[in-house]
């Protein structure tokens, strides 16, 4: 029983911490001054939030097929998120978007 409770508490802590980082990432993506800083906020917390939340859910799932699927989701997200961030930064840099906030052009 206590092992089950410890597992529950562990997964709750992981999920709450994950939620916190996900939320911080969202705020960062909204409030940071220019594209590159926004991307930095979003992509870093994306990875950490993913690890924490999915580990929390895996603890709840126990040793089932669902846990294996969740682990696969986690691996794929950990592969694709940083790559997408890289590709995006690369595309932005390629098109000549400057990383200096004071020169970030506004639109509309």
């Amino acid at each position, binding site marked *: 029983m206590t092992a089950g409770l410890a597992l529950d508490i562990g*997964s*709750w802590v992981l*999920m*709450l911490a*994950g*939620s*916190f980082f*996900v*939320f911080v*990432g*969202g*705020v960062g*993506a*909204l409030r940071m001054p220019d*594209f590159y800083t*926004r*991307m930095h906020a*979003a992509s870093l917390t*994306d990875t950490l*939030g*993913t690890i924490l*939340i*999915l580990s*929390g*859910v895996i603890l*709840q*799932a126990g040793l*089932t*097929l*669902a846990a294996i*699927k*969740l682990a*696969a*989701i986690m691996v*794929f*997200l950990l592969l*694709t*998120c940083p*790559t*997408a*961030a890289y*590709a*995006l930064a*690369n*595309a*932005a840099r*390629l*098109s*000549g*978007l400057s990383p200096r906030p004071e020169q*970030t*052009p*506004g*639109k*509309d």
Partner: protein
Amino acid sequence: MYAATATAILVTMALALTRALLGPTIYDRVLAVNMFGTKTVLLLSVIAFLNGRPDFLDLALAYALINFIGVLAVLKFVQDYTMRHSGEERGQ
């Protein structure tokens, strides 16, 4: 507990949507779409457990696998665009 996590993810989704609507550059929008995609995967996983049917994780898995394609398509689009209109600045 799932509900609290899902709420945090949903609020983050709203923030990402705001960024997508505000822009100002197209890359901000792509970033928002990518972020939104990751959050969708997390939300789907959490909701599958909240509903008590964890056998529906296939959907989250599908998104985790193919969400990446959109960003690569954008990268290629921008690359071709810069090739065709070299010198002309895009996304401002």
